[in-house]
C-alpha cells in the first residue's frame, strides 16, 4: 500500500532532492541510498570490513609476511606450529602454520585473494549470461523465450552447488590429469553457470514490462533498431535489481567456491583458497590443531557476513520487487 493511499502525503521525494541538478557526487551523498547507508552502523561496519578484506586480498603479495606458493621456502620443521601467542608458537608465524609449514596468515591473505577473484568473476559471468539471455527472451519473445525459459526451469531443478559440482566433474573428466592451472577457470565457469537463471528471469520479467512502455514505443517510432533500444533504454532499467542480486550472489559464490574447494574439487592444495585451507585443517582437528581451521573459517564467515549485510541493505534501500 502506498503512502498516498494511506492518506499520507507523498514523502518519497523530499523537496531538498528536487533542487536544481547538481553534480553526481553531491546527488549521491544527498540520496536516500547514502542516507540509509549512514543510518545503520552495522552496514557501515560491513562496508568497512569488506573494503579492508578486499584491500588486504589485493595487496597480499605486498603485505603477506611469507609466500605460501613458494614451495622451496617451506620447511617441514615449521609445520603444525600454533599461533605466536600460544605456548610453542613462533613469532615468525603470527597465526601459526599448517601441516606443510606454511604461514597461516599469509595463506589466508592469498586464499582470500583467490576466493574473491573467483567469486567476482563467476558473478560477472552469471550476470553476463543471465542478463543477455533475459533481455533476448523478454524482448524478442517467441521461440527464443520458450527455449531459454525451459532451460531455466530445468536448471532450477538443481541447486547451484550441484550444478557447479556437475560441471566441475565433467571438466575433471574431460581434462583428466591435464588440468594444470585450469582449476581457477573451471571454478569460475562452474559457479558462473550455476547462478545465471535468477538474472535471466528477473531481467526477462522487467523487459516485458519496459518494452510496452511509451518511451520504448516512441524510440521505435523514431526508427531506433531493436538492439539499440534494448541496450540504450531497457538495460539501464534492469540494472538496480541486477546489482542487488549480484551482491547477494557474491556472498553465495564465495560460499560455493569454498564448498567446492572443501569437497576437494576446487583449487589444489598448492594454491590454497579458504575452502582448501579448511579442508586441510579439518584433518588435523582431532589432533588439537584448531588454528588451521579456525582462522580461515573465521575469515570466510566474516567476509560472507559482511557481503550479505551489504546485499540486504542494498535490497532494502533500492527495494525492487525481489524475492
Amino acid at each position: 500500500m502506498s503512502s498516498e493511499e494511506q492518506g499520507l502525503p507523498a514523502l518519497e521525494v523530499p523537496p531538498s532532492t528536487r533542487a536544481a541538478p547538481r553534480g553526481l557526487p553531491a546527488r549521491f551523498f544527498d540520496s536516500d541510498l547514502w542516507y540509509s547507508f549512514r543510518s545503520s552502523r552495522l552496514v557501515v561496519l560491513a562496508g568497512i570490513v569488506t573494503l579492508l578484506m578486499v584491500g588486504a586480498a589485493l595487496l597480499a603479495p605486498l603485505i603477506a609476511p611469507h609466500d605460501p606458493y613458494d614451495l622451496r621456502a617451506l620447511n617441514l620443521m615449521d609445520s603444525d606450529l600454533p599461533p605466536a601467542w600460544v605456548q610453542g608458537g613462533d613469532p615468525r608465524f603470527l597465526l601459526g602454520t599448517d601441516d606443510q609449514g606454511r604461514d597461516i596468515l599469509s595463506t589466508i591473505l592469498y586464499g582470500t585473494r583467490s576466493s574473491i577473484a573467483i567469486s567476482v568473476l563467476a558473478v560477472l559471468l552469471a550476470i553476463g549470461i543471465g542478463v543477455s539471455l533475459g533481455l533476448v527472451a523478454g524482448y524478442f519473445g517467441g521461440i527464443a523465450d520458450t527455449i531459454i525459459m525451459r532451460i531455466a526451469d530445468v536448471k532450477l531443478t538443481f541447486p547451484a552447488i550441484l550444478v557447479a559440482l556437475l560441471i566441475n566433474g565433467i571438466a575433471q573428466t574431460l581434462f583428466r590429469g591435464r588440468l594444470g592451472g585450469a582449476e581457477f577457470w573451471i571454478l569460475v565457469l562452474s559457479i558462473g553457470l550455476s547462478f545465471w537463471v535468477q538474472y535471466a528471469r528477473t531481467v526477462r520479467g522487467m523487459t516485458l514490462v519496459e518494452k510496452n512502455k511509451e518511451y520504448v514505443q516512441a524510440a521505435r517510432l523514431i526508427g531506433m533498431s531493436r538492439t539499440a533500444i534494448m541496450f540504450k533504454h531497457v538495460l539501464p532499467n534492469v540494472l538496480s535489481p541486477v546489482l542487488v542480486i549480484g551482491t547477494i550472489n557474491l556472498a553465495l559464490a564465495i560460499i560455493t567456491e569454498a564448498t567446492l574447494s572443501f569437497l576437494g574439487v576446487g583449487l589444489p592444495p598448492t594454491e590454497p583458497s579458504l575452502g582448501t585451507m579448511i579442508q586441510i585443517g579439518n584433518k588435523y582437528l582431532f589432533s588439537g590443531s584448531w588454528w588451521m581451521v579456525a582462522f580461515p573459517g573465521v575469515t570466510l564467515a566474516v567476509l560472507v557476513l559482511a557481503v550479505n549485510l551489504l546485499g540486504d541493505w542494498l535490497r532494502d534501500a533500492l527495494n525492487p520487487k525481489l524475492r
Partner: protein
Amino acid sequence: MLAFTIRRLLEAAVVMLTVALLAFVLFRFVGDPINQMVGQDTSIAEREELRQRLGLNDPVLVQFGRFIWNAARYDFGISYQVKRPVTSLIAERFPATFELALTAALFAVLLGIPMGVYTGIHRDSWLSKLFLSVSLVGISLPTFLIGILLIYVFAVQLGVLPSFGRGEVVRIGGWTTGLLTASGLKALILPAITLGLFQMTLVTRLVRSQMLEVLRTDYIKFARARGLSDRAVNFGHALKNTLIPVITIIGLQLGAIIAFAIITETVFQWPGMGLMFIQAVQNADIPVMSAYLLLVAFLFVLINLIVDLLYVWIDPRVRIYGREA
C-alpha cells in the same frame, strides 16, 4: 482441476526428459565408456566387440531411447569405480540420505516457521532481533564450517556425540534405519542440525518477510478494525495467507536439502548418496553421476507436483481457476 493436473504432469515429463537427455549426453559423450570399463591391456578387437555388445555403435537416437527405457526400468548401468550396478549402490545409500534429509527438513520447518512468525509479529522485540542476527549468521556460515564447528565442540571438546558415520543401523527388508537405535539417533543429531540450519534460516526469513507483507494487507487491517483478537488476526487470518507461498519454497528447498546433503555427508562421512556422488565426481564415475542427477531431478519434480496439488487444496482461488503461471 483434471486439466490442471494433466498440464502439470506434462510439464513435469518435459523437465524429466530434458534432464534425461543431459544425463545421457553426460553418460555417453563425456569420456569414453569403454576406456573406463576395460583395462590397459585390452585389445582393440576386444574393445570393438564390447562396443558392439553394449550397443554403442547404434544410432544416437536409438541409444537415447535405450537409455530412457533402462532408466524407466531403474537400470543405470555399472559403476566404473566399484564395478557394481549403480542401482544397487543407490539402494544401499538411499535410506541414509533419506533419513538425514527428512530429519533436517523437519528441524528446519518446525523451528523456522515459529521463529519466522514470531519475528514477523513482534518486529521490534529483542528476541526477534536475536533470531534475525542468528539467522543472518546462519546464512553466512557455509554448511561445512557449521559441521566442523559442531564436531569440534560436541565430538572433540565435549565428546558427547559421534563425529562420523550412522552409528548402529537396523535392517528392515531392503531398508536400513538408524532411527531405532540409541547410537543411530545420536549419530543423526549433528548431521541433521548441520544440514537443517541453513534451511531453517531460509524458512525463518521467508516466513517473516511473507508475514510482514500479509500483515500490511487491507484484509488484516479490516480484521483488526472488526475487533478480532490478536490471536485470531495473527494465527487465523495472517498465518494461512503467509504459509501458501511458503509451502512452495519449502517444497523447492526439500530438493535442495538432498543436494546439500552432499556437503554434510562429506563432513560427517555419512554413508549416503551425497558421499557416493562426491566420490563419483572425484573419480569421474559417470554412470553414478548421471543416475544421481536423474534421481535428484525426479525427486524434485515429484515434490513440485505434490506442492502444486497441495496449493489447489489450500487456496480456494486456485481451486476454481487453476493456478496462474
